[in-house]
């Protein structure tokens, strides 16, 4: 694989605002890559543009009962329920372990109250390899809070303002697709000071088992991800990117380099790859190695030129 070649060149380097430069735009999405260790068994993590680590909460969480995943056509449902080892362990073990790689970490933050969020933000911002925050205001699985932050523009904006005061790191807000008007939320968090958006999180879905006659997931409903949701992600990014002036990390169903290009055309400046990691643990380096070929095919010098080309002039 020509990972190192592609990493070396700058045609894939992306600048997200003034605040973050990535060697390439491919970022494993939060919750689909743990804290990196498992995928480090497959390839050197330096190949990646950045890593979005699993949502971190103040206290350790066990999450939802199992089963936590189900398969759907061209997609999957998950209701992990934000299981994570808690802030302390993330700071003392997970993040330090990742320091062996030259790769920026984007810390996904979750909580059930504003105070929760602030506490994680304040402390995690001190970790030397955490270069940006991703505010998970959209995880649909936790009943207390979570979803409400992401569906109400006023509440979302308030949280963003407080988080901005608590940290000087660039702040990405992760938007939920389960809303009537995603542009409204995007604009509200931009106005409140967000440095970027990441979108989309999962769509709320369910599957029912014909044998047990009950939902397959113990949590009943879960988040739908994978290729099935890509058209929804593309549409939302296409709409939002025309209405905000902050960069968007696009995600939702990316499986191939072609998909990455489509997200750029829609308006993304970098991309998250989630579910695809389960299908093929090598998917991120594979995509990265294929991107330049696509730039050649499209006659484009630099990948950033593609951002928003689907609607620009």
């Amino acid at each position: 694989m020509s990972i190192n070649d592609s990493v070396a060149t700058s045609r894939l380097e992306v600048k997200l605002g003034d605040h973050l430069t990535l060697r390439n735009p491919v970022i494993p999405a939060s919750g689909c890559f743990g804290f990196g260790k498992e995928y480090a068994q497959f390839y050197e993590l330096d190949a990646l543009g950045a890593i979005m680590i699993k949502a971190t909460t103040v206290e350790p969480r066990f999450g939802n009962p199992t089963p936590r995943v189900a398969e759907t056509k061209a997609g999957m449902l998950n209701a992990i329920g934000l299981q994570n080892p808690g802030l302390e362990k993330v700071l003392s073990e997970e993040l330090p372990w990742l320091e062996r790689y030259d790769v920026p970490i984007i810390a996904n933050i979750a909580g059930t109250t504003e105070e929760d969020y602030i506490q994680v933000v304040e402390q995690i911002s001190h970790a030397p390899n955490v270069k940006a925050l991703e505010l998970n205001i959209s995880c649909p699985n936790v009943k207390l809070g979570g979803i409400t932050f992401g569906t109400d523009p006023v509440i979302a904006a308030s949280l963003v303002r407080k988080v901005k005061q608590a940290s000087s790191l660039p702040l990405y807000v992760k938007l939920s697709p389960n809303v009537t008007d995603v542009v409204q939320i995007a604009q509200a968090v931009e106005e409140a000071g967000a440095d970027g958006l990441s979108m989309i999180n999962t769509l709320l879905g369910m599957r029912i088992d014909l044998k047990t006659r009950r939902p397959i997931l113990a949590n009943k409903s879960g988040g739908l991800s994978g290729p099935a949701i890509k058209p929804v992600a593309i549409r939302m990014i296409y709409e939002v990117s025309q209405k905000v002036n902050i960069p968007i990390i696009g995600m939702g169903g990316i499986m191939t380099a072609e998909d990455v290009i489509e997200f750029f055309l829609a308006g993304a400046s970098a991309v998250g790859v989630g579910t695809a990691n389960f299908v093929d643990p090598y998917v991120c380096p594979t995509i990265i190695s294929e991107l330049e070929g696509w730039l050649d095919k499209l006659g484009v010098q630099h990948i950033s030129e593609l951002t928003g080309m689907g609607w620009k002039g």
Partner: protein
Amino acid sequence: MFKKKGLLSIVENREIAEHIFTMKLEGELVNELDQPGQFVHLRVGQGFDHLLRRPISICDVDHEKQQLTIIYRAEGAGTVAFSKQAVGEQVDVLGPLGQGFPIEERKAGEHVVLVGGGVGVPPLYYLSKRLKSKGVIVSHVLGFSHAGAVFLADEFAKLGDTYITTIDGSFGEQGLVTDVLDRWNITEWNALYSCGPLPMLRALSQRFEQHEAAYISLEERMGCGIGACFACVCHTPESDTSYKKICTHGPVFRVGEVIL
């Protein structure tokens, strides 16, 4: 060491009992497989009709021929698709994954009991072969629903004492595997390894809670299969938030190590 993924070719794929298929897969990746109780994670076809991989136990390995045998029940969409794959087609295999049965602890001359139920039986076959080759004396207690569902009976018989039970009594003894343990008073053993349906594992766990070397192999729906997604966790007795991942800490656990 980097983990592996490979394309293996199907050299055999046929029904050996009702809805139960055996598939032989050949290729280089087989060199990596040698721990009984570990599993492989298989893609179903190539498109996105079946997005998630399917975890299937190693049932037998032939390093000389570079062949892996799996035995699976064609039940849901993905395994039914497996059953229709033709010889010559390729399967995308990730593995070996997980922690297998701890056979290093066993010594020649020891007596070990393997207890299996339904599609929990396949991993015990490679386990039994490996134990036997170490000089361990192996007994097998294998439970199936009915005669038509029985498989590998002869093969296990060649490796040691083999008790087959069926729920309806249509083959072997009538009853559950635990009934056999009672009936034949199988109590003198150095280790017990089991794999099968949850109720069976629960019964065994209760019964052998105090035993040092009683092991169970668990199943759970998986996302990544490598420990990254937290899909396959189970509670452990230590605390409310303590857990084990079946895909990496397991699938084999010591009895009592996790809460069933």
